[in-house]
Each structure stands twice: as C-alpha cells, then as structure tokens.
C-alpha cells in the first residue's frame, strides 16, 4: 500500500512538472529557465528531471536517487501568448518549494491561481500600449502631432489585433491585420496632412507588434546551446516581422507613399 502511494505521488509530481513546463513554454520563458525550474522542483522531491523541451511538446523523465526512471510522459504545449505574471509566479513558487517542500495540492492550487490570474483591464492595456507608441514616436524625433497620430493608429491597430485574436484567427494573420490597420490610419493622416511630417508616426505605429520576446529568447537559447528551440523561436519572430512588413507594404501601396 505504501509503495502504491509512493508511485501515485511520483505520477502526480510528474504530471505537475509537465504542466509547469507547458505553462512556462506558452508564456514566453526561455528553454534554460524551464529546465532550471523543472530540475529545481524535482530535486525538492528527491528526484532528477530530464526533459526534452520543444516548441509544441515537453517530454519528461524523472529519475529516483538510484538513477532509475520512475516517470516518463509527454505533454503538448498550447500557444497562449506572452504572460510574464505566470513566468514570475512559477519562478517564485519553485524557490519556495526548494526552501520548504510543498504539499502537491498546494502546488496545484497555486498553478490554478496563476492560470486564472486576471490580466490588466483591456482599456488600460490599449491606452498604455498607445502611449508607448507615442513614446516611440517621440524617441524617433516625431512632432507632437506625429505622436498623436501614432497614439490613434496604435490604439486601433491593437484593437483589431485583439479582436482577431479573440476569434482565433491565425496568429500571423492577426499580426498582418493589426499592422495593416495601424499603418492605414497613419497613412490616411499622412495623405490628409501632407505638410505635417508624419513619417515617424507611420514607422512607429506598428512597433507594438514587434516580436521582442521570441527574438530575445531565441538569442538566449542559442547562447545556452538550445539550438533547435532557438531556431524555432527565430523563425517565429521572423515570420511575425514579415507579416508586419506585408501589412505596411499594403498601406504604402494604397497611399502611394
């Protein structure tokens, strides 16, 4: 009976670790961080974790102290989007688990809490990102009018991107539509006010779409030797950049800029 209980506990730990790995992968953590967290938590329960972490799935093998495999399973990773609240929360939780071994039920509760943690209110997000766009425009030496145009273009571009994401359109298509909307608005202003130099507003109105997280994570993965994941993230980042470029080119052609 005790042996069976121990086996059940190992299975539970394995499934929790797979869930943690999957959550981290889909929230924008780099491969090295996922591996460190999985190893850290497994060690707290006197096991070693060997994981194969890919873009779409995680394969995990747990070894006991005699280096015998006691758990082996695979979990698919859903692509959710960047969420640093989950990455920070799990990282902090893993440190707490390392310091004081948690009951498994508490880990599950914490993961549920992190998964259901509220995002910022949509109105706040849209305004903050639009302000960031205006800030970008100022950094590119745009005028006050350019900044205002950039704010409006970013606001509407982000709105279109959020709405298309909500109806589960292809992510690349969402980026294209977001970029096209933002540059279309900025391009329209540029056409109506040719005397105002709105080049900076046009150029910076799409910067809310730049794939900063995939590109930086890709570089970190390359440095750490996780070449396969690095290549996948790089191609993903380049794909997003390409769709932004296509969206901009459509507006450039429409307004003959």
């Amino acid at each position, binding site marked *: 009976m005790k042996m069976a209980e121990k086996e059940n506990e190992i299975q539970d730990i394995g499934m929790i670790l797979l869930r943690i790995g999957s959550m981290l992968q889909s929230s924008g953590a780099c491969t090295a961080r996922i591996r*460190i967290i999985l190893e850290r938590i497994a060690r707290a329960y006197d096991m070693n974790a060997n994981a194969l972490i890919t873009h779409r799935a995680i394969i995990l093998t747990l070894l006991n102290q005699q280096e015998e495999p006691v758990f082996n399973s695979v979990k698919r990773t859903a692509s959710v989007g960047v969420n640093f609240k989950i990455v920070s929360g799990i990282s902090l939780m893993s440190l707490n688990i390392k310091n004081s071994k948690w009951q498994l039920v508490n880990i599950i509760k914490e993961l549920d809490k992190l998964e259901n943690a509220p*995002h910022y209110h949509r109105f706040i997000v849209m305004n903050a990102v639009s302000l960031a766009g205006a800030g970008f425009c100022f950094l590119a030496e745009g005028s006050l009018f350019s900044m205002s145009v950039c704010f409006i273009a970013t606001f509407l571009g982000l709105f279109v991107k959020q709405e298309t994401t909500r109806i589960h359109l292809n992510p690349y298509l969402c980026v294209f539509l977001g970029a096209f909307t933002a540059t279309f608005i900025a391009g329209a202003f540029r056409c109506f006010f040719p005397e105002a130099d709105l080049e900076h507003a046009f150029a910076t109105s799409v910067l809310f779409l730049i794939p900063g997280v995939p590109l930086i994570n890709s570089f970190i993965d390359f440095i750490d030797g996780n070449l396969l994941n690095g290549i996948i993230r790089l191609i993903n980042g380049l794909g997003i950049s390409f769709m932004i470029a296509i969206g901009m080119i459509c507006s450039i052609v429409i307004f003959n800029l």
Partner: protein
Amino acid sequence: MLLILKALAGGVAAIGYAILFNTQSSSLVTIFFIGITGIFIKAGLMLFGINVIITSFFGATSVGFLSYYLARYIKRPPLTIAIPSIIPMVPGIFLYRMMIGFVKLADSREITEHEFIKLLSHTYSNGIKAIFILCVLAIGISFPYLLFRKSSLHYIHKK
C-alpha cells in the same frame, strides 16, 4: 532637457510593453526606471557623436545588468524585467526606411541607374544598421546571463 524628455518617453514605452506582456504591477516601477536609464545612456552617448550601434550596445548592457541585479531585490526572473525595458531601443525608423527602400527598389522602372545605386546604398545602410542594433540589443541584454548562467547551472548540479 530633450535628453530627459527622451528618457521619460523610453520609460513610458517600457511600461506600455510591460502591461502588454502582463507583467506584475509590482515590477512596473523597476521597469520604468530601467527603461529611463537605458534610453538616457543611449541618447546621452549619441550626443557625443558616438555611432548608434555602439550607443545601443551600452544602453542594452546597462539594461541587462540593472535588470539582473534589481530582479533579485523584487524576486522576479530578470528577463521579465529586461525584455519590456529593452524594447524602446528597437530601431523602428531604420527598419521602416529599409523596407521603404526595398519597396522602391522592387518598383524601379522609372529611375536612372545613378538613382538606383543611391537608393540601394541607402536601403543597405539602413538595413545593416537595423540588423546590427537588433543584434547588439540581444547581446547586451544577455550579457549578465552569459557571465552568470554557468555558475547557476553549476550550483544546481552540485546540489
């Protein structure tokens, strides 16, 4: 004065991205501070006539180190602070000019050979600048990782 305004704009941009990435509200002040510092260093060095690639590298490295150390105090993974803070340094205007150049080059029926070569050189120059800046941003932000990651992995293996 313009430098301070630019640095503040960088901080605002960093906060915008932090909110977009759903970073915890307790990290926002740190991100704002690091965003300001990064742009202040980059724009400040540019006032001395230093190349934009070099200034971006110093700005990114300062963001990398600041986020690495401040992350310890607020108990957050360094990258969740560093990534939103670095994004204001992305060379958007160079990327845009490169793309416009490509579009014009693709539709170059009515321009002379001299104009074509001039356009090509401008496009090439903007593209190279943008790519190098993106590379130095990634290197700069990863600098503390490069220096300290080995030790942390070694520590985990020893445990």
